[in-house]
């Protein structure tokens, strides 16, 4: 594998950061401010995309920032896995920026400059996490992300936000400082390095009990992955404005969590070590529990965003599940689900926000018949649901298929049941919404005649159409991303 040294990863991380002072100073001129956000988003995405050819040809782009101790420095290394995540986050940032303009202006929200500034900081931290070369750098950006998203969660500044933001912080900061930090330092203590490498860093020096404890500390410590019982911050964080929920809790924050777990499994422990100790089953069991239980809870939620939140918790554990399968298809399925789920879920959140802006409705029981009023929105919702359930013609099918193959490859056919059951549950809690919206009769249905089509404004509808179409597109053209993953994980 060729190693290229380039400053591009650093620049990608810096672009949103550098734009923040400009955003703050143009707070009086909202249009200028939004223009700068888009500019930064495009530049960042282009920078990231420009590294794709190199990564696809098998090289790794590295850049070391600061050396702390031998083997533990702050450095970037762009491989297939990180590239995938960066592309997802970068592209969805642009779409979400468009969406949040529509949303915030539509609701005349306060504190927009603070909002976009911390948003930019959050995306910068996400890119940093994607490009991290070692566990220390990953931890650094993980923490920065936690802190950057706190003001976003607490945006509304009322009592509910205060409590939710507090819970957010307690779960996320508490687990990362209390579990990940000691585990990370212990790894360094035993091996003298923290850099991700395909064969893991332990070189056989770890005993099974130590490996089990460390693995569990990491899996539960990265609470952003929403593994039960450290999941309750996710539904609580739904008090934030929908763009926050969309980008951060469908794409950036939660994906950093699962991304970190995948990195630890593949880059720190190594697939072989975990297979040798048979620890994959442990993680799969934990993930399966979360998958099933949160799907059940999702069924009982009437508030749309909360249902989506529990669905997210469930889907995230698919990714962890896939990684824990330790088989090539399983890993491929799990990691590509990062991509597929991101597009699918963000569509769903966009729809939820559009519904709220257009009609003020938050509860599913109120949404009967709404599909006739907002056909585009609910069509997109339907496509997004298919993506999450895992049915063709959406990309979600591709990842589900590979996960199922993965269970067979790993000889864990029993766990395939988990996947099938949860797919059923997913269908159960998404499809009725769409059905009722198009064919149901609402309590406040105006008349039986033709209903006036009244979508939310264009800034809100365009993004959800884009992401819905992208979900379909990913079904037909997943190849580049598959290549990235295969190269990145040496599958």
């Amino acid at each position, binding site marked *: 594998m060729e190693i290229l040294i380039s400053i591009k990863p650093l620049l990608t991380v810096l672009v949103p950061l550098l734009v923040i002072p400009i955003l*703050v100073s143009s*707070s*009086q001129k909202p249009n200028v401010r939004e223009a700068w956000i888009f500019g930064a988003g495009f530049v960042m995405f282009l920078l990231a995309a420009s590294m794709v050819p190199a990564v696809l040809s098998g090289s790794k782009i590295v850049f070391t*920032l*600061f*050396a*702390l*101790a031998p083997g*533990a*420095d*702050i450095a970037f290394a762009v491989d297939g896995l990180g590239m995938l995540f960066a592309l997802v986050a970068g592209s969805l940032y642009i779409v979400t920026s468009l969406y949040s303009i529509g949303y915030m202006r539509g*609701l*005349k*929200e*306060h*504190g*927009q*400059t*603070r*909002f976009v*500034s911390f948003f930019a900081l959050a995306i910068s931290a996400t890119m940093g996490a994607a490009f991290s070369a070692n566990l*220390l750098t990953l*931890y*650094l950006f993980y*923490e*920065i992300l936690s*802190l950057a998203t706190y*003001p976003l969660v*607490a*945006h*509304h*500044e*009322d*009592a509910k*936000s*205060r409590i939710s*933001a*507090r819970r957010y*912080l307690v779960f996320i*900061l*508490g687990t990362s*400082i*209390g579990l990940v*930090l*000691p585990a990370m*330092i*212990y790894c*360094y*203590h035993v091996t003298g390095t923290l850099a991700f490498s395909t064969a893991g860093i332990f070189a056989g020096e770890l005993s099974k009990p130590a490996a089990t404890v460390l693995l569990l500390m990491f899996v539960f410590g990265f609470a952003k992955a929403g593994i039960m019982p450290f999941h309750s911050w996710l539904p609580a964080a739904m008090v934030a404005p929908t763009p926050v929920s969309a980008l951060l809790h469908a794409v950036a924050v939660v994906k950093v969590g699962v991304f970190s777990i995948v990195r630890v499994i593949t880059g720190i422990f190594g697939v072989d070590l975990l297979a040798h100790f048979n620890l994959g089953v442990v993680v799969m069991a934990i993930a399966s529990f979360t998958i099933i239980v949160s799907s059940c809870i999702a069924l009982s939620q009437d508030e749309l965003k909360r249902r989506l939140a529990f669905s997210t918790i469930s889907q995230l554990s698919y990714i962890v599940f896939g990684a824990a399968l330790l088989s090539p298809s399983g890993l491929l399925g799990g990691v590509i689900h990062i991509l597929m789920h991101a597009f699918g879920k963000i569509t769903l959140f966009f729809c939820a926000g559009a519904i709220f802006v257009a009609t003020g409705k938050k509860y599913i029981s109120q949404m009967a018949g709404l599909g006739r009023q907002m056909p585009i929105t609910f069509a997109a919702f339907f496509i997004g649901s298919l993506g999450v359930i895992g049915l063709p013609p959406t990309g979600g099918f591709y990842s589900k298929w590979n996960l199922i193959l993965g269970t067979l490859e790993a000889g864990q056919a029993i766990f395939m049941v988990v996947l099938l059951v949860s797919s059923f549950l997913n269908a159960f809690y998404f499809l009725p919404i769409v059905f009722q919206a198009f064919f149901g009769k609402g309590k406040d249905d105006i008349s039986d005649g033709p209903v006036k089509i009244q979508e939310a404004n264009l800034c809100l509808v365009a993004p959800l159409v884009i992401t819905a179409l992208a979900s379909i597109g990913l079904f037909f053209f997943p190849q580049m991303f598959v290549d990235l993953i295969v190269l990145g994980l040496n599958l």
Partner: protein
Amino acid sequence: MNNMPAILVLAPLFGAFFAGLAAWMQKQISYPIALAAMALSCFAAVSLLTDVIMSGTVEYRMAGWAPPMGIALRIDLLNAMVLVLISGIAFLNLVASVKNVEQEIPDRAPSFYVMYLLFVVGLLGVTATGDLFNLYVLIEITSLTSYTLIALGDKDRAPLAALNYIFIGVIGASFYLLGVGYLYITTGSLNMADVAGILTGIHGSTAVLTAFILCILGVWIKMALFPLHVWLPNAYAFAPVGFARVVAPLMTKVMVYVMVRLMVTVFGLEYIFETLHLADTVVWLAVIAILAGAFTALFQTDLKKMLAYIIVCEIGYMVGGAWLGNSLGMTGAILHILNDGLMTFALFLAVGNIIYMRKQAGFSHLSGLFAAMPWTMAGFVLAGLSIIGVPPFCGFFSKWYLVLGAFEAGAYHFAAALIISSLVCAVLFFKVFEICFFGSADTTPALHGPGMQQPSHDIHADGHAGAAADAGAGDHPRTAVMAEAPVSMLAALGLVSMAIIAAGVYAGTIVDTIILPFLQ
């Protein structure tokens, strides 16, 4: 001969003298003289650091007398770093605290500056000296000036706090003096390097053991190691802001430096860890200190007291790290001297700004601070995150070394205490952030207090604060509301914040250039 060590210590001394004289003639001159003296001292410290890094230990003989007869100032890598810290913080604090001094002690400002300079002389001397008795004298100079400076604070409670501090401080210094006496009896010399050489032959002696215990006990009392810390919270909470800002980061850290110096240079690590068997007990003591400090801080309702207990907790880190018995732990402890000095200074700078604008720092007075004083709060948040141990700020990296050292020494209880205290500090600071962010100590609308410029928003339950109002920095009517501290204070806070970040990302460089060569 390199005269920098002399300039370093004598510049503030003469500055104090001239500032005192000038106060008789024209009160306003005392501040510029003090500033000039501190600047000179700062320059000398930096030049010493570069000298030591490039050419090795600098020795300066007072009046040309050769040790062990004469008193020598001995600057090696360790104290060069601490000297830069001391003079830098003292200088920046002078710049930042001018307005605080005007506000709190307007009629006694010249005396304040004179005492301040003498305090700095004491600190610099303690760090630079190579003679054991000289160390005692300088410790006492530091203590005496700090007693008087503390008493200049809160009119009701400061004199009593200072008096209690005197009693405990005298006990501490006297124990140290007694220890030096025993050392003199056994070795016949007072020069540190000399004593070290002679002590290598007499490790088994009870007199040396007594000397060690007495010296260390005295230093522990002075650095406020739990349970010998009782003087600290009151003394620092009731001192005038201009002084609290410099004594909190420096005094206890300089005492930690003295402990490290005694351990490494005078008695020798071999003696401490192989002949004596105290290390395990001391690490346990440190664990208790860390947990006690952190949990007591949780129950405070005043910012200054909360920070004072955090200092007690941080001292536990350094004592534990030094006594772990491996170079990682000692590295962590020494790095933490630098880092904790910077972080505590930044925190007290921010608190001083808050006190300047709001006259008080109790939790009930902190509402709406993010909107009213965004720059101060930015600095406060940064320093708070550093104390919690979030990378890339410096606090994370000293914790890194300390935990690594704990793992290597098998002291898992120490590692656990470090992690638990990080979590407790996270709770502490986010509690304060919440109060400042949400505009009230609980969810009731913000209080309207005298002298506070109240943000023009009302916090409605649904969070929509009106079409035009904005909680961000400078959107619409909110700009009129920013009641920030003067630029001199903000500039100092900004510089220190940058130093915290720099000390973090360059932690590796600092360890490699200064600490590891020192420990060789």
